[in-house]
């Protein structure tokens, strides 16, 4: 049975190549769409997820990270006096103009944090240190945006909001979901760069580290009782809200998921067509098997085995292709993620896709009249 399944599958190499191409195409399409979805999702909330904060305090009704609104510094002191707050750090997120050395202007997002605080700092630093932004006008940007922002190395000078700035470090792989790259600097510098929207006594977020012995939920409750006009979220909550906004409220995620679903449908259709055609090529052989006494269960297993072989090989090739695409995406503007659970999930999806595609053929073969062997 296994031998017949394999031989019938591999015998016509051109047909098998077409089958594999269909499977690989469908799987790669699905991987890219889901990978993009994951990449987008991760990108939208990366500053929250890497903030090392337990809680985020945001202006009332601010739904997601990129539209933080300024509020008075007085709230910061109210927060500090709340039971369960071990550490609170002021944090700025605001848009500004970056004037390139050649005179061009780019829109950027300024992220202001307190260097050395351990909260809200940039990560994956490839050159320089986070603490270096303590230097006057020091900023850190991501390597991905060197060309976009017109800088090449540490020490390059630019202007942000008519204030001088100097590149003191680079990160690797911190993307912005919007078209405005993140520029990390000290809280103090960030106020200068974002004038006139921001004032000395204002901030966008407060990042909280809770005291050991308190759960984030307990401190969240305390803060809601102590501090008015502000919302308090755990990092997970704020991250989820931000992701949900970008992925579903804007429709961006829905579009990507729909494309992934279309990939699945196209994949099943392509594979079903090729497996069906291969089955019809051997239909007389299946009739002979039935005449010889093979049960429908036996024929079912032959076709399922062919489907599984197609899936396994298609999956293997798809993973190779996807690996190169994912690697290439790391240097591009759009991140495609392929975490291990997704890799495993894709294997089962490939099996499901091919087995589902084989069902039409199975239905045809199990209804086959073995008397056909005596006809012509």
């Amino acid at each position, binding site marked *: 049975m296994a*031998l017949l399944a394999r*031989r019938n599958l591999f015998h016509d190499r051109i047909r098998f190549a077409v089958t594999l191409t269909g499977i690989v195409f469908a799987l790669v399409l699905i991987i890219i769409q889901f990978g993009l979805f994951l990449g987008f999702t991760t990108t939208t909330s990366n500053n929250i997820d890497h903030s090392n904060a337990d809680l985020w305090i945001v202006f009332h009704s601010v739904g997601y990270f990129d539209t933080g609104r300024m509020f008075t510094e007085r709230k910061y002191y109210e927060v500090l006096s709340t039971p369960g707050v071990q550490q609170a750090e002021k944090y700025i997120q605001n848009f500004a103009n970056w004037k390139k050395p050649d005179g061009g202007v780019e829109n950027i997002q300024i992220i202001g944090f307190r260097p050395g605080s351990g909260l809200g700092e940039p990560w994956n630093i490839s050159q320089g240190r986070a603490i270096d932004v303590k230097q006057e006008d020091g900023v850190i940007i991501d390597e991905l945006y060197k060309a976009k922002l017109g800088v090449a190395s540490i020490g390059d000078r630019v202007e942000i909001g008519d204030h001088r700035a100097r590149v003191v470090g680079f990160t690797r792989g911190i993307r912005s979901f919007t078209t405005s790259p993140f520029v990390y600097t000290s809280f103090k510098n960030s106020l200068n760069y974002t004038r006139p929207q921001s004032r000395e006594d204002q901030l966008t977020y407060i990042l909280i580290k809770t005291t050991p012995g308190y759960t984030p939920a307990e401190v969240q409750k305390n803060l809601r009782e102590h501090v008015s006009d502000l919302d308090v979220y755990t990092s997970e909550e704020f991250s989820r809200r931000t992701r949900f906004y970008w992925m579903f409220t804007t429709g961006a995620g829905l579009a990507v998921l729909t494309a992934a679903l279309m990939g699945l449908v196209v994949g099943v259709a392509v594979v079903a067509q090729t497996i069906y055609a291969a089955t019809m090529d051997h239909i007389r*052989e299946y009739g002979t098997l039935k005449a010889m*006494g093979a049960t429908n269960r036996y024929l079912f297993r032959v076709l399922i085995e062919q489907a599984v072989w197609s899936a396994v090989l298609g999956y293997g090739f798809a993973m190779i292709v996807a690996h190169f695409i994912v690697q290439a995406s790391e240097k591009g503007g759009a991140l495609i993620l392929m975490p291990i659970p997704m890799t495993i999930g894709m294997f089962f999806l490939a099996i499901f896709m091919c087995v589902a595609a084989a069902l039409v053929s199975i239905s045809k073969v199990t209804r086959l009249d073995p008397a056909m*062997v005596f006809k012509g």
Partner: protein
Amino acid sequence: MTQFSPSIKTALVTGQPASPKPVIRARKLSRVYSEGATELRALSGVDLDLDAGQLTLMMGPSGSGKTTLLSILGCILRPTDGRLELLGEDVTSLPEKDLPRIRREAIGFVFQGFNLFPTLTAAENVALAMDIRGVRGAPARQRADGLLREVGLQDRMHAFPADLSGGQKQRVAIARALAGDPPILLADEPTAALDSTSGRAVIELLQRLAHHHGRAVVMVTHDPRVLSYGDRILHLEDGRLVREEAAHHSPGGAQHFPPFQAVADFVKEIPAEF
């Protein structure tokens, strides 16, 4: 498993008819094909008893019901009316799902067009028939090798069907049909596509399987070259069994059909100038 009667088992082991009970017993077999309001009676009230150890030839013009009868005897097609017993078991009363088991355990098929699996070697074709019966690995390979030796193909075991001659293909098909050691062998014009030498080799093989191995071999044929090999010749016309002839065995083992009307009719029709 099929519950064969003790006398049939004895016949299978010894190769000798041990019981008056036939291997195949058909009573009033009929088959009607319906298409809308139209009915086509392909077989009408056929009575038949076939014994182990005999090569039975089935002849008749196209549309006479030979293939329909062969399909019913092979449990591939159900009769519309009548009763069929194979090895003492009434197969007409069995549910559809039991018929593949009967085909696996009691019947071997040989087809006119060989119906070999082109992607498998000769040995693999035979082993596949074992696989259907749940025998795999070394036992299946050994059995396949043994059967191919028996049909004289020990040198062609690893050849693909495309590399075999017509006669060799048919011998592989016979080896495959024997994989389950069936007491009944049904052959549909097995020599039709073969030259005279290959055809003779195949019919001699089928005769040997009947006479020396005690199988009931039923063969549909139009081929006048094989007539002298049959123990019985059944003539069908318009779905009816119209005539039956039995061979007269000479003391030396050869056989002939003295009143063989079909050959006489055939010879009469040949123009004198031919």
